[in-house]
């Protein structure tokens, strides 16, 4: 029982991180209709910025806020300078640019801060004694912090989309950019804000996950997290916030349970096994759990 709870808690924590990054992916997908392959490395780069600030003796909270701002500016700049010029010509080109950014940002982080593993301090209490006992298992402060961050973010994003003018315009642009423009929405500004927002959310995911990640902060830290997050976003239907959250947590828990209870899977096949299950589910529901079915008129 104790072991089960421990695995469940670990799965929930990993899942929350996947969900955070999946939310960033959903925001860009809704605005641009593409999967942002650079999302993970964008998060990595901003986490390096946060870590670098802590080495300059900045308090960790300040470093995190700075990383969020850098994430927003970087995301917005990428949309304005790289995505917008190519999108007008070809949707496929957006994908290529994102792939280029994926490798580019990773290399840039390596160039600026070398490839040694860094220790990013956690903003939450994560000493050996900082835990609460749940069903005999230990729940540490930084895991709780990640859950809390996810809940706060989902509430804020729901308010943004449902209650604010910018959120309304973001939904309008996602539904149909041309009609939104005809109604007077400044679509280019909205797209830029969308990318900026996803950059900031990605940064949040990055700074919260690296203190928990077994690899800590290194150049490969985000690879698996990004793959799991894209699977989570796909699983949830790519355009649904709740889908991203449910998808992320499902994958996190599935991974933890499969590697814990199915002996031949262990640590080696952990990532693959969860993804296989997702593929199976997508066979049954091609639009994901919460995705909007797209009708194409011929």
């Amino acid at each position, binding site marked *: 029982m104790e072991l089960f709870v421990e695995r469940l808690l670990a799965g929930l924590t990993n899942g929350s991180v996947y969900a955070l990054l999946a939310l960033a992916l959903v925001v860009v997908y809704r605005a641009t209709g593409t999967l942002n392959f650079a999302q993970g490395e964008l998060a990595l780069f901003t986490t390096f910025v946060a870590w670098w600030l802590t080495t300059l003796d900045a308090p960790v909270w300040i470093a995190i806020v700075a990383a969020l701002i850098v994430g927003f500016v970087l995301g917005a700049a990428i949309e304005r300078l790289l995505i917008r010029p190519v999108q007008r010509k070809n949707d496929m080109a957006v994908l290529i640019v994102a792939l280029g950014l994926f490798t580019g940002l990773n290399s840039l982080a390596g160039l600026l801060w070398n490839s040694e593993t860094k220790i990013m301090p956690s903003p939450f209490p994560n000493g050996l004694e900082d835990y609460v006992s749940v069903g005999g298992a230990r729940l540490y402060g930084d895991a709780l912090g990640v859950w809390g961050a996810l809940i706060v973010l989902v509430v804020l994003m729901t308010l943004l989309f449902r209650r604010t003018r910018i959120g*309304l*315009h973001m939904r*309008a642009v996602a539904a149909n950019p041309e009609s939104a*423009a*005809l*109604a*007077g*929405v400044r*679509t280019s500004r909205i797209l830029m804000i969308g990318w900026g927002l996803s950059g900031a959310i990605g940064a949040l995911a990055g700074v919260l996950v690296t203190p928990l990640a077994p690899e800590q902060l290194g150049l490969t830290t985000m690879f698996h997290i990004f793959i799991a997050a894209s699977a989570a976003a796909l699983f949830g239907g790519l355009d649904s916030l709740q889908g991203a959250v449910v998808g992320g947590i499902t994958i996190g828990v599935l991974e933890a349970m499969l590697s814990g209870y199915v002996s031949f899977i262990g640590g080696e096949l952990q990532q693959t096994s969860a993804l296989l299950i997702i593929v199976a589910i997508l066979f049954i529901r091609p639009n994901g759990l919460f995705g909007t079915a797209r009708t194409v008129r011929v």
Partner: protein
Amino acid sequence: MSLLEVTDLTAGYGGRDVLHGISMTVEKGDVVVVLGANGAGKTTTMRALAGLIGRRGSVTVDGRPLGRRPDEIVRQGISLVPQGRGTLDISVLDNLRVGAAVRKDQKGIAADIDRWCEVFPVLARRAHQKAGTLSGGEQQMLAVARALMSRPTLLLCDEPSLGLAPIVVQELFATLAEINRTDGTALLIVEQNAELAMDIANTVYLLEVGTIAAEGPVERFREDDTVRGAYLGY
């Protein structure tokens, strides 16, 4: 000074011109109808005026040059109800709110939403439904109401009757005429359904393969045998 002054407008797609230098004028409060066969360039004219495609030539609004981006043009008081309606698949109420994107007067926006829900009662009944669940006629009402939410001085309508039942089309044109009378909103309507459009129009332009073939007051066109034969069918 004319509300809209189009001089030598040329536009098209992918480097191929569809319009070859058309000129037209819309005065304040006018109802202008552009008639033309399929492929004459009616929709291209509308898309060029709304900023959806590039254009050459001069277009002025109240003497000032027309903007290039769609949202700039809406800010100048020109709103397009696109062909095929272009409603957004968000709730009916949200569609109306998006229509007020260029406005900041919260009270006025709320009052206008109430007003259009009264003019088009179906919008009030379906306020929280997604626009995609509405019938074609209902979506057309929503598209018109959304365009009016920006308080335009000139409303562009691209084939508003397309795909609608005759009775719905009649209602729609009656409402458009009413809005023109009460608010003084000028209308520039592109139509294949010439009969109904000419009932509410005062000026007609005849578009043939990207050029203006004829223009004048509506009465003259009603008596013109070639127009009657080609566009009115009697």
